[in-house]
């Protein structure tokens, strides 16, 4: 049996779809075929447009066309003043949020693709002019369009494949689990994100780990040191496997020379100070590594800082390795 997927876009950038096309070894279509996923419609990939598409939606609404998965990319646009007029689905004159309520009731599963669809995300930043929210969350608060208690006909909440953008594997692994009927409630975390990637921290596998261990910190973006102390990096708290599972053949935000902004978390879009500046109280970063007792962090940090090898001090504030391993020992001991 094929798993039918209807993919819609609303208040977002389309970047999760573009990222999905980056799937490699095998490519996207091979992945979909391998587990029997049929894209009933996708905004970037399908042939039918306009009338034929609207007819498809109406058939689903009428119960004539079965639907296994409703996937939404982009936030739900409730504005202005709750009317949904900020996104009327073209050709239908009907707010997209109305369509989403109807289709979510019909689909066996509903999946939020990306942090906008899950929580509101970037579209809900600042004063949230679009009154954007997620399908089942408004930021970190359960609710959103469908309400915290909503369950799909299959008995699951909205599955939140959060990320900005999502890694192609996060999406295809989740769809594969639905196709193979192996996913159950225990596979989702406290924000209903697939634990297949949120049981990890971005910190895991970060190439800057040695700098972190010795609190040898970057002072500017592009420096090689740890970016937690000064540059706003949230990798020690962020739930994702970005440094284990490479992006675009081998990259990650950290490898790209800039901090993790915790884009899989609700509310990431409004940082305390700015995205690239660490908020501190009495010199200590406000957000500590997940599960780390504060007193121990402070004690270990001061100890490790006192023991920082000269090599790490040299390299932390440089854009390339200026002191290779085995060098710089004397400078430290003198």
């Amino acid at each position: 049996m094929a798993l039918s997927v209807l993919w819609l876009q609303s208040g977002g950038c389309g970047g999760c779809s573009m990222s999905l096309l980056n799937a490699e070894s095998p490519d996207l279509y091979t992945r979909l075929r391998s587990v029997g996923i049929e894209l009933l419609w996708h905004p970037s990939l399908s042939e039918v447009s306009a009338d034929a598409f609207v007819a498809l939606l109406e058939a689903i609404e009428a119960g004539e066309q079965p639907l296994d998965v409703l996937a939404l990319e982009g936030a739900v646009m409730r504005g202005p003043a709750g009317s949904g007029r900020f996104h009327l689905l073209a050709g239908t004159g009907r707010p997209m949020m109305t369509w989403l309520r109807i289709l979510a009731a019909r689909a066996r599963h509903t999946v939020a693709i990306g942090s906008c669809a899950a929580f509101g995300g970037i579209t809900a930043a600042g004063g949230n002019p679009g009154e954007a929210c997620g399908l089942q969350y408004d930021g970190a608060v359960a609710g959103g369009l469908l309400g915290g208690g909503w369950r799909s006909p299959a008995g699951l909440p909205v599955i939140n494949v959060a990320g900005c953008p999502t890694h192609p594997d996060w999406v295809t692994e989740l769809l594969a689990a639905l196709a193979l009927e192996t996913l159950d409630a225990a596979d989702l975390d406290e924000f209903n994100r697939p634990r297949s990637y949120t049981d990890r921290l971005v910190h895991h596998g970060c190439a800057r780990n040695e700098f972190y261990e010795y609190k040898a910190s970057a002072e500017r973006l592009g420096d090689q040191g740890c970016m937690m102390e000064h540059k706003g990096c949230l990798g020690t708290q962020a739930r994702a496997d970005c440094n284990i599972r490479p992006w675009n053949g081998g990259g990650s935000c950290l490898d790209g020379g800039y901090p993790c902004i915790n884009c899989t978390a609700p509310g990431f879009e409004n940082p305390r100070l700015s995205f690239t500046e660490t908020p501190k109280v009495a010199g200590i970063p406000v957000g500590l590594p997940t599960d780390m007792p504060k007193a121990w962090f402070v004690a270990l940090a001061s100890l490790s800082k006192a023991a920082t090898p000269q090599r790490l001090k040299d390299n932390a504030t440089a854009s390339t390795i200026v002191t290779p391993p085995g060098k710089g020992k004397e400078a430290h001991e003198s």
Partner: protein
Amino acid sequence: MSRRIFGPFNRVEGDLEVTVESEAGRVTAAWVNSPLYRGFEQILHGKPPLDALVYTPRICGICSVSQSLAAARALADAAGIEPPPNGQRVADLILACENLADHLTHFYLFFMPDFARDVYASRPWHGEIAARFRAQRGTATPALLRARAGFLHITGLLAGKWPHSLSLQPGGVTTTPGKAQQGALLGILLGFRDFLETVLFADRLENIAMLDDAAALARWCDAHADSDFGRFLRLADDLALHRLGRIEPDFLSYGAYGGLFASGAWRPGEGRLPLQTAWIGEDVSHSWMLSQNGPVHPLHGVTQPDAGQADGYSWCKAPRYDGRVIEVGALARQAVDGHPLIRALVAADGSNVRNRVVARLLEVARVLPAMEAWVRGLAPEAPYRIDVRLPDEAEGEGLVEAARGSLGHWLRIRNGRILNYQIIAPTTWNFSPRDGQGVPGALEQALVGTPVVEGAGESVAIQHVVRSFDPCMVCTVH
């Protein structure tokens, strides 16, 4: 007279609705509506200026780097600095990677599948085109996806990831490719060149870049009929796509890649004139925006939605250049730059569906060899960025040529915060609504005369015209 609403259009980025009036099966008037409003300009108000580098790329997942670079340039302009040559070269590489990937995505995934539709079943080329380009099932798709994903490894190396990187900064870039990466980059570029030279063109890129008039293009097509470009040219000829979606050329380009493509304005008979960004104004008389007194330059523009505007029919504003409706994109860029083939095709048939597609693919052939030279030209010992201190009070303008055309960011900083941020994206130009004089936007003009099926049924010609602009609706309104 008959009236029809078309939408949503897929295989464009974002949501789009087009209303047409027609008589005797031809469009007589069109109204283009961008039905989604998110409010980035309002979101940015009051934010720390450097955070624009996180927000603006997320306007668009397909032009993410373009948005990023426009923000970085606006901030650099505000700080009064310029990145070092290495930083500019790496930024150009990342931008060119996105732009070429977008051109290919457009050709293979968005544009060509319309010719595989059953409506063309009687055409002699249909079997071949349907086998190759049918949406989701065409044989060209897996090869394209692999080539595209491999090419985007450039962003993995130079920008961490794509889309939505923070590596492009006002002072340069946060990556420092060394000698080893130069080799890796050349390997990626050669892999992509191989795809282009065996599948898309079946010819050397340099031979495509040297085509200089319609006769040369026709001869090339005869000799390379089994390339994907050749397949397009043959069906374009059969369907007379040079007469479809036609408008009088009035082109703008901000210039690209450190002078590789010249900036300026161009229309027939006038030649290339210097770019005057002071002549840009945004009109909101047919937008769902709080009304204002005539067109306003984006540095002082306001974006305040008002769904109750009686004359409004789109969330998109109407940018004008010296009061004129402008088309931007690869065709405009190549015409402004003065490429002989594009100047010749435009002189003969103006701006049209075929010429827009030809210019995009020509650009692929022109840019990839330049990327190879940029990689070889990197100086790994020299800096890739400089430190930047943003003043608490400043103004900045950031201009970029995205795949789809001219993208501008205008920024004012007060008390160290963003006071105003305004964005004019390529599709804002191309898909603008009417202005205060009632003059329709570029697509609205291009649709006039297009064959349309009245009542129900697919009108595939409308789809060709719309997609020939490679619209990005999420950028358009943002």
